[in-house]
């Protein structure tokens, strides 16, 4: 069929939009109600953080890196520290590895619950949004108890961690994640079985395994399309001592992505239990690191949104020559553009949310 250009129109979407907590701008080329093409334009939160790495002491930089994003804060700090530990060739004490794992999984739970809430808000289920966020507060209380901060933890340092989790805290964590599991089971039914939710999610924004591979998709978006990839399998931190299998699904639609993230919360709860059970007795938290970094290192972590790449390069000075952070959302934007093709205008907000966009990560 010949394309009738006169029926095409362009709708600007964002940056300030009710469904988006963060600004991203999309130019949607639509034909009637169908999106034909989506051209993203980013840069509303670009701060130039990677440029700051060239003029800030590498020890101080860790606190700036943690503030790339408030949701993935802990894992960003950890990725930076692991990259520099790789350059210094130091081995972190075992207890620090386990503590990092526990905090990683806690931030994954909080991030996924946040996403589940935003998704519910996206398809207009307000009470489900409130329920998900109510449960999320419990894990934030635990973050506050163990690190002192609700979102920005600042407990990493190059060579280890700064704070310990004592026995009272582990008891509190175990009690709390038990409650979270119970309460999540109650709202899980609504997310997965409710008729109206299914009608909004099923068959929307389908991406096949091949498409994901071509577009470089990562994380839950890739796993929902059947790609069995989870960087935690590389065994960084204490993941090599824990038992888990990546959560995958084969449908590749919004429902599958919701399903994968929901089950990853249970997986994280399980991982925290395993890590607490195996927490080493030796309370050494950090090894000293001396001198200036010289060398380069690639580190890959599985963040709550997918694979993040940290690349540090230094040539013996006090400042790093390059600190590159490739965040998961940056890799998922091509997938989003592909998903939007053929979607109806009313689904655009939902589709933007299903990749779990973290714009402040993306633009740094």
């Amino acid at each position, binding site marked *: 069929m010949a394309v009738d250009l006169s029926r095409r129109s362009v709708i600007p979407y964002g940056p300030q939009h009710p469904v988006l907590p963060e600004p991203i701008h999309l130019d949607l080329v639509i034909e009637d109600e169908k999106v034909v093409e989506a051209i993203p334009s980013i840069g509303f939160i670009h701060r130039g953080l990677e440029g700051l790495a060239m003029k800030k002491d590498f020890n101080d930089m860790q606190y700036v890196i943690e503030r790339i994003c408030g949701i993935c804060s802990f894992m960003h700090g950890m990725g930076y520290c692991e990259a520099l530990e790789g350059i210094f060739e130091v081995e972190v004490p075992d207890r620090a590895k386990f503590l990092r794992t526990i905090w990683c999984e806690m931030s994954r739970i909080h991030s996924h619950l946040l996403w589940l809430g935003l998704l519910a808000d996206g398809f207009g289920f307000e009470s489900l949004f409130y329920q998900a966020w109510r449960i999320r507060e419990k894990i934030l209380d635990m973050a506050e108890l163990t690190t002192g901060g609700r979102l920005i933890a600042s407990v990493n340092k190059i060579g280890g961690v700064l704070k310990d989790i004592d026995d009272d805290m582990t008891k509190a964590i175990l009690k709390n994640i038990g409650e979270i599991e119970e309460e999540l089971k109650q709202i899980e039914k609504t997310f997965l079985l409710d008729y109206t939710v299914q009608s909004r999610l099923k068959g929307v924004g389908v991406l096949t395994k091949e498409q994901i591979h071509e577009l470089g998709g990562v994380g839950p978006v890739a796993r929902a399309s059947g790609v069995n990839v989870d960087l935690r399998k590389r065994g960084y931190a204490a993941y090599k001592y824990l038992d888990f299998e990546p959560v995958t699904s084969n449908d590749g639609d919004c429902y599958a992505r919701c399903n994968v993230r929901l089950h990853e919360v249970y997986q994280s709860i399980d991982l925290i239990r395993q890590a607490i059970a195996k927490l080493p007795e030796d309370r050494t938290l950090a090894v000293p690191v001396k001198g200036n970094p010289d060398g380069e290192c690639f580190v890959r972590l599985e963040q709550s949104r997918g694979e993040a790449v940290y690349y540090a390069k230094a040539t013996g000075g006090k400042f790093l020559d390059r600190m590159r952070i490739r965040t998961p959302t940056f890799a998922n934007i091509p997938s989003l553009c592909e998903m939007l093709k053929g979607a109806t205008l009313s689904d655009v907000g939902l589709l933007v949310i299903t990749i779990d966009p973290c714009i*402040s990560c993306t633009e740094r």
Partner: protein
Amino acid sequence: MGKVARSPWLLHYDGSSCNGCDIEVLACLTPVYDAERFGIMNTGDPLQADIFLITGGVNTQNKDVVKQIYDQMPRPKVVVAVGVCACTGGVFKECYNILGGADSVIPVDIYVPGCAARPQAIIDGIVKAVALFQERSDEHDAKVKAEKKGGR
């Protein structure tokens, strides 16, 4: 107060913040902290908003967006800068793309400190903003009344 207080609507925009303050602002509106009990309501429409919550510093690209949102809001209006980045630029002050705090573009009435700002602090800021909005509305009403009388 003696009479029915106003119920201002709240608009939230993420300047160039790290997301931390944004999700804390959202957390304020959800059941545990429930800022809506102070009579405010969250909206996505600048044309109907009375209180403007801005998080994060201002960069070269969103400068115009922030200005436009501020201009679209009807008078009287109150601006609350949430988080240290919106107050001064914070840790990102030296970055090449950051112009400074929110007050480098629009007038800010209330500053909420913290990185990330705690919900309690944000609620405190909102309560102050509601009071200030009431004050400004009363002033505005009195002015309109006086003008009407003078016109007659």
